[in-house]
């Protein structure tokens, strides 16, 4: 019985650790023009689904996506709850109904970082361990 309890605790800890590791696989970065230092998960979702184009502090933001990769998959799962194909269909519906445009998509963490660093209002995501020189990392609460 004691061994079973220990096993269950170990499994629970492993599940929690893997969940935290997944969320920790990606970080949200923004151009220096974005005033906020932190952002809620709901705001991240609203921005990347083009439901809003500004943060609560009034900063105008434009989402930038990665074209595939581990950071992209982790971001979609953690913040948007959509697969890539569902997300692309969603963006197409915005474009073809005149409600939005396809967000810029870049091929690597380095490209996303470089674009976010130089583009006013840009907000994107990169691997947690990737360099983000020139862009600020937003804490997601």
């Amino acid at each position, binding site marked *: 019985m004691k061994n079973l309890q220990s096993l269950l605790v170990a499994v629970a800890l492993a599940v929690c650790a893997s969940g935290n590791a997944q969320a920790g696989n990606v970080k949200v970065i923004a151009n220096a023009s974005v005033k906020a230092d932190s952002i809620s998960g709901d705001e991240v979702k609203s921005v990347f689904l083009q*439901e809003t*184009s500004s943060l609560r502090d009034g900063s105008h933001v434009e989402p930038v996506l990665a074209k595939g990769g581990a950071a992209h998959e982790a971001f979609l799962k953690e913040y948007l709850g959509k697969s890539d194909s569902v997300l692309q269909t969603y963006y*197409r519906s915005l474009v*073809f109904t*005149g409600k939005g*445009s396809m967000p810029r998509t870049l091929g690597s963490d380095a490209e996303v970082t470089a674009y976010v660093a130089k583009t006013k209002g840009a907000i994107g995501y990169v691997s947690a361990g990737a360099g983000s020189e020139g862009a600020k990392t937003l804490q997601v609460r």
Partner: protein
Amino acid sequence: MNTSAGSARWTDGAISFNDSLSDKLRIGIQLHASQFGDFGGPNLQVDWATGDYTISDKAKFAAGKVKTVYGLFNDSQDVDAVHLWVLLPESVYPTDNKSFLLSHYGGDFYGRINLGKRRGSLSYRGYAGYRALDMNGGYMKNITELSGLTFNTAPGGNVFGGDLRWDTPLKGLQVGVSAIVMNLDGKASAGSIHVPYATDPVIYARFERGRFMVAGEYKRQPAFLEFRLGPATIPSRFDAQCWYAMSSYRIHERLHVGGYYSHFLDRSRDTALPAYFSKDWAVSGRYDLNSYFYAKLEGHFIDGNGLGYYNSTNPAGLQPKTNMLAAKIGFSF
């Protein structure tokens, strides 16, 4: 089209251009061509062409030829690439009248308010404008069959409306209501048509979580028409009661299946007669070959011929029940 023998007279395509001139101003235009049997034609039409100005997320304006937000799918009913279905539920989204219902010339005010984590968010839209019937659409065909009148210019009228939708605190649940108020007038050489202002409300709900989706809408569409043929005035009316329920499941990334029941009744007539009802059970599948190409297969089991059937294209008469199989391939980028 001779659908009994199968027909390929069903093609549509669109191309869209848009650009952000500044943080606040976006412009765009979409051109569309559609052929659906006798409806549509090879000519490119302007689907929408708008300038969109943002003051804040709570206050935005769009003007030009603007897609009409009504129910869940009115503004996207011509975008085949974003839907599982070959045909959206015809009771609420009749394909033969898509070009008339899709957009209006005028202006929209819209926005979104975040009510907080416990209350969700509210999106709202109001609009005013004008729209005219499509000379190659279903309503023109109906009017011609009913009255015998030939119109050289499309009847048109004013349109006002709005939409209010609530993304509830329950993740994935959206509920809403839309209403549209419009009139119609048109002159032919031998007479005219007049439709006074009428209001068409629709309520809807959609729940989507993970791979599963369920949605439904209910619409009531009463209308009174007046045909003037020389000195005679001939009234006509209909009272459409329409609803559907649909569900779908994404089996995996590339395969999406679903089904719906679509229900239409003209309550101003004898609803026991097939000409005044349509009960459509549909089952559908979509396979995405890659990010660009997709294929759809859909079966319909239709009781009644109150929707989408025309005496002029069925001189031998209409059957009370129809089964239909539609196969479609598409490309989008």
